């Protein structure tokens, strides 16, 4: 019997090739999308899970609102780890990591700079999974000045020599480190990646008892089964106890008064949630994360597409119902039981689903490289064989089989044979279920089109926004900070090139990699808030084309100007310098005590952070050091680059010449959004294609069912456009209804997305019109494609049959 079911099912599929190709192709698109996006989502949500103790590890983070400034930092104060471990029994271990920027090793007179370096507490290697492949695997970081290095670094420094016991000179001979172990490279799916770890034991700052400086990534290993939320609830007492007294000392206000006006707190973040929680990206996170919101968006798109494909299946099944109903009646009259018919219909949809799965596999195979490019991943086909994907595929096969075959299996099979034999059973062309499902499909299609338009608009807005500085024709050589004394002569040489307009010496940039500096600011004795500091020279403002609103630029004429500053408008407002800011003074809180600064100019606000964030107060100080920023006269800089490179090489420096373009760095700031735009565009296109395939099928049925009517109307003199109108009218109505649902929904969701940007577009009424127009155009095109054929058919032919 089963064999017979399969035989009949195959034959039915073959016989209804047209309909089934629509179903199967649509379904395979849906499934392929699901598989790809599933790969992506699983990958993104599996960060740090390779650690055996992952579920018991939390990170301590700092959040505060001080003087109206929202602070959230992934790093906390040096004593936090030790304090929490001794105060709370549920904390088994507390370990810290302190990242050092721009490290430099010297070995055998060779310099190495291109590596990531951090100090860690020795327990760090116990809490996180490390694979020590050479050397002391028990406690390699016990002694001060011991380091462990990755396999790749070991090869780089020592080649074939045994790295264990070798000494590396750190920075300019500040320290000597001894290699005690070599570890396997840290997984790419970790929220941190370092090449070298040094023992925290020899690191002075680690012993600091300051509760006002945050620099340490701090992780807690909790007792199995203890709830981190419960521990988190106890942290305010710690802040009171330890931070309170120091606040009074540092700020000169009592802690209780400070607490009335400000909020400070330590919070906990599960290790496995770090990657999907991008709140700390700009404040100490070790790697850019992935906003979980985007995973939801992608997941929704994949599901929508699958749903639309299933709906095609259901719709076309209902449209074919009158034909299938007759078969049901006959079979029942021949002795078939309902469950036998259910089986038969389900086997039919099962086979179709399996074909679609195979096709989907093929599609994934073909498009995996494209997808990898789009998503910035390196998936391989074998990644699909993960347990969860296989299980999910099986579940999907089951669900799709039931959804797709559900209508004939459960509804048609219940038809009484007598109804069919009396030919009383006619499925009319109209079906509320089908109409509902078509509306649903177009709600999704129109909604996605709307979303895409808005995403494009916002990104174009960012691209074209007046940033307050000019990002074009700017060449950045951050490594110039390494040149040391010869920097000025290097700058002078480069300036000789006629293509160079100006050069400024600074490592502070409004986009891309940049130095960051912040300081507390006081007016008199009164603590105000922290402000960003840019250390620049007198060429910074002209080179970046900032606009000076008041006062003057730094100038050699006035000698050393260390105590002079130029501030941005926001800083000026924040400090209450409304009338005449020039000549006003304030105090910068530095490690060596306060420094009194005098305002000599105000620059127009410029976006020195991404457009996700509101412009904050900024202080430009005359303190040239670091990298070199070059404004060129033209965009064609290839010859300039060669000439700069040759000058670079003449300086005796091992570092290879490297540079970035500011506008490219700027573009990269919005990579996440662009990635989303591209992925969304591709899958929206596919989703609409699948929806239109379904529509095409439905129009085919409608035209078939009404072939006699069309024939008669034509004989009576109806024109081709009138016939097309007749056939499309009902569908167009459904599509219009779908707008009514799609647009408010789309508006609401896209508003949410736009909230992420401090600088954003407003959603305009014409966007809706445009989305409606495009959707209608696509749908109508599909309908006309099919109904035109029906409309031009020779009526005599259709009337002769029967």
């Amino acid at each position: 019997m089963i064999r017979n079911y399969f035989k009949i099912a195959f034959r039915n599929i073959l016989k209804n090739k047209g309909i089934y190709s629509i179903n199967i192709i649509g379904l395979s698109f849906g499934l392929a999308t699901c598989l790809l996006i599933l790969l992506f989502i699983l990958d993104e949500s599996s960060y740090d899970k390779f650690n055996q103790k992952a579920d018991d590890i939390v990170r301590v983070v700092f959040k505060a609102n001080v003087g109206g400034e929202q602070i959230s930092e992934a790093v906390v104060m040096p004593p936090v780890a030790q304090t929490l471990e001794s105060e709370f029994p549920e904390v088994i271990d507390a370990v810290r990591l302190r990242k050092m920027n721009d490290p430099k090793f010297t070995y055998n007179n060779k310099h190495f700079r291109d590596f990531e370096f951090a100090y860690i507490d020795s327990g760090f290697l116990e809490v996180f999974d490390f694979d020590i492949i050479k050397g002391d695997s028990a406690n390699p970081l016990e002694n001060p000045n011991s380091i462990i290095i990755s396999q790749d670094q070991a090869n780089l420094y020592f080649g074939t020599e045994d790295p264990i016991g070798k000494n590396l000179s750190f920075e300019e001979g500040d320290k000597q480190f001894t290699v005690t172990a070599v570890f396997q490279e840290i997984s790419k799916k970790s929220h941190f990646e370092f090449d070298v770890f040094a023992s925290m034991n020899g690191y002075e700052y680690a012993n600091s008892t300051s509760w006002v400086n945050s620099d340490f990534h701090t992780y807690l290993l909790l007792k199995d089964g203890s709830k981190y939320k419960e521990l988190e609830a106890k942290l305010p007492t710690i802040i009171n106890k330890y931070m309170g007294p120091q606040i009074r000392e540092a700020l000169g206000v009592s802690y209780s008064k400070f607490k009335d006006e400000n909020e400070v707190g330590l919070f906990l973040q599960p290790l496995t949630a770090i990657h999907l929680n991008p709140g700390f990206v700009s404040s100490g996170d070790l790697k850019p994360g992935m906003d979980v919101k985007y995973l939801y968006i992608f997941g929704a798109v994949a599901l929508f597409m699958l749903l639309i494909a299933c709906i095609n299946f259901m719709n076309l099944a209902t449209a074919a119902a009158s034909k299938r109903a007759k078969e049901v009646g006959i079979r029942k009259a021949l002795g078939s039981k309902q469950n036998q018919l259910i089986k038969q219909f389900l086997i039919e949809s099962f086979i179709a689903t399996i074909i679609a799965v195979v096709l989907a596999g093929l599609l994934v195979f073909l498009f995996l490289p494209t997808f990898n490019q789009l998503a910035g991943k390196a998936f391989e086909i074998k990644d699909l064989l993960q347990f969860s994907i296989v299980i999910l595929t099986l579940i999907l096969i089951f669900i799709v089989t039931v959804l797709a075959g559900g209508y004939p299996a459960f509804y048609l099979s219940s038809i009484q044979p007598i109804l069919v034999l009396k030919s009383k059973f006619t499925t009319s062309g109209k079906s509320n279920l089908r109409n509902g499902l078509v509306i649903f499909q177009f709600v999704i299609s129109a909604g996605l089109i709307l979303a895409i338009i808005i995403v494009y608009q916002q990104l174009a807005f960012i691209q074209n926004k007046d940033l307050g500085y000019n990002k074009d024709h700017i060449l950045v050589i951050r490594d110039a900070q390494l040149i040391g004394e010869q920097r000025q002569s290097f700058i002078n040489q480069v300036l000789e090139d006629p293509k160079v307009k100006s050069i400024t010496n600074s490592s502070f940039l409004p986009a891309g990699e940049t130095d960051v500096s912040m300081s507390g600011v006081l007016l008199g004795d009164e603590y105000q808030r922290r402000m960003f500091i840019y250390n620049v020279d007198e060429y910074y403002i002209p080179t970046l084309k900032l606009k000076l609103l008041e006062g003057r630029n730094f100038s050699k004429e006035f000698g050393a100007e260390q105590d002079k500053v130029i501030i941005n408008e926001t800083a000026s407002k924040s400090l209450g310098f409304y009338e005449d800011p020039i000549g006003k003074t304030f105090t910068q809180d530095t490690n060596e005590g306060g420094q009194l600064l005098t305002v000599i100019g105000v620059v127009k606000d410029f976006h020195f952070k991404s457009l996700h964030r509101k412009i904050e107060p900024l202080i430009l100080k005359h303190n040239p050091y670091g990298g070199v920023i070059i404004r060129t006269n033209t965009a064609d800089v290839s010859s300039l680059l060669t000439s700069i490179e040759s000058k670079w090489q003449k300086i005796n420096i091992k570092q290879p010449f490297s540079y970035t373009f500011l506008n490219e760095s700027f573009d990269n700031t919005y990579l996440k959004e662009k990635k989303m735009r591209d992925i969304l565009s591709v899958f929206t296109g596919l989703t609409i294609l699948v929806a239109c395939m379904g529509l095409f099928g439905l129009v085919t049925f409608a035209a078939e069912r009404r072939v006699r009517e069309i024939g008669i109307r034509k004989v009576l003199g109806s024109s081709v456009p009138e016939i097309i109108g007749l056939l499309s009218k009902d569908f167009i109505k459904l599509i219009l209804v779908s707008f009514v649902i799609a647009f408010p929904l789309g508006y609401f969701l896209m508003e949410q997305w736009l909230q992420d940007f401090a600088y954003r577009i407003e959603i305009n009424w014409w966007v809706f019109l445009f989305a409606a127009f495009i959707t209608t155009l696509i749908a109508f095109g599909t309908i006309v494609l099919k109904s035109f054929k029906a409309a031009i058919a020779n009526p005599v032919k259709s009337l002769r049959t029967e």
Partner: protein
Amino acid sequence: MLLELNHIYKWVKSGGRRVFLLNDLSLKIDEGEFLSLMGPSGSGKSTLLNVISMLDAFEEGEYYFDSEAVHDLSSKRKTGIFNENIGFIFQAYHLLDDLTVYENIETPLLYKKIKSSERKALVADMLDRFNIVGKKDLFPHQLSGGQQQLVGIARALIIKPKLILADEPTGNLNSAQSDDIMGLFKKLNQEGVTIIQATHSESNAGYGTRIVNLLDGSINKN
């Protein structure tokens, strides 16, 4: 006696009034009869056949099939009796378009879960008997109307029914084809199968052993 209908009423409501499709209809049919139901279009022939088949219900009256009280039976049991005992032949043949001649005939056996070897033998027998062995792999649309009806009959007979119900089996056929089918019915009847057919044609009715005339859902005694 094979079946007995006593005072059967079947009606539909139309505008609050009852429209009688079968009106106080009583009929006894013995095993081995070949009965022809005659009467003008709309007189209730099909309705009566459907009621006898148990596929359709009636509002009042008693119906005994093989001494079982059909009016008291569950619909499941009725379907069971129908599947065991009755073969139905349709005016429009109602072959399954996607199945070959062979498969069409085989289908009722599949639903009865008969073993493959036995099925083969039974279907081969039937093809032989109706002289359509050569057509066994053709699809319905490749056959003439008469041939299609032959397949329909073979399919009805394959479960060895006690009773054959045929609703205008030759309604779509020409007179030569029609005579062939009637000859076949006669032969089946002589082999012991009870047949009830609805027909408009006097000559078709002539093949049978008894004629019942219907008018407006009642037996016309004239």
